[in-house]
């Protein structure tokens, strides 16, 4: 399997997430927390984030219907979601959370509804992009692929050295014997 291509693809996907503003520096903080003891920490956090955020969005939609114009309540839900977005670096989602809260402050129902739709769109986009990214990283886990490549290189090198040595011995052997000085 061509791990180097897959690693390049993963790097490109991740770069895209940052360049397009879906993720910010906080995501790198989360990545820094991943280590050998917790090799899937980032993915686990992301899974929990989408579970939590899905629930919070659903609760908010119910609140919008059940408690019309209760901006304080709506704001409280969105504040929780904003906190989670901040914690993992979900930058565009966080911005929509802030936009929603601004609309709560201005007591604009239409503004809140608009912000919520944008938030749901960003939520879906981020989820899809991160799923693609993790799918690729699963196929080419960085440490294993490096070890695999190094192992293959070592075997190839050893084989080359052995073959070269054997060829050399075949060439040198008879000629060496002919030129050996008499004892």
């Amino acid at each position: 399997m061509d791990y180097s291509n897959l690693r390049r693809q993963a790097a490109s996907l991740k770069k895209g997430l940052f360049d397009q503003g879906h993720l910010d520096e906080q995501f790198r903080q989360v990545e820094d927390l991943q280590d050998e003891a917790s090799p899937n920490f980032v993915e686990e956090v992301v899974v929990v984030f989408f579970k939590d955020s899905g629930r919070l969005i659903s609760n908010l939609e119910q609140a919008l219907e059940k408690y019309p114009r209760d901006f304080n309540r709506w704001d409280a839900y969105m504040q929780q979601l904003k906190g989670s977005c901040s914690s993992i670096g979900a930058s565009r989602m966080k911005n929509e959370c802030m936009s929603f809260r601004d609309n709560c402050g201005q007591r604009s129902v239409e503004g809140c509804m608009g912000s919520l739709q944008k938030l749901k769109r960003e939520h879906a986009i981020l989820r899809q992009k991160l799923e693609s990214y993790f799918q690729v990283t699963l196929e080419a886990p960085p440490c294993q692929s490096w070890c695999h490549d190094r192992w293959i290189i070592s075997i190839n090198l050893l084989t080359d050295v052995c073959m070269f040595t054997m060829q050399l011995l075949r060439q040198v052997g008879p000629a060496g014997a002919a030129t050996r000085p008499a004892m």
Partner: protein
Amino acid sequence: MASSLKALLVEDIKVDSMVLSFMLRRFHCEVTLAKNGKEAVDMFLEGNKFDIVLCDKDMPIMTGPEAVIKIRAMGATDVKIVGVSADDNAMEAFMSAGADDFVPKPMRLEVLGPMIEEVINRKNN
């Protein structure tokens, strides 16, 4: 940085709890979790001792600032209490409740590190 600090993390949102607890463990803290202010207060009532508390603001049953007031009222004046919240108005609520510090979310390792170091130095002295 070696540390045997006992940290209490008071946070109801699981994502935030995961990230913050891993950050604390990065600095070798022994982490105890509480899901709301009441659980945090109960920990102290049960006689548990902590060196540092990281506390969210808005939680069910009991908020962070409410918990801080009760914890300080119990005589737990040595423990460093840090409010952590995405709420822009949280700082005043925490500081007037008796917290030592406030950090807006998201917490960063480069912010948490010096806090941990300060608590270690204070403990050693």
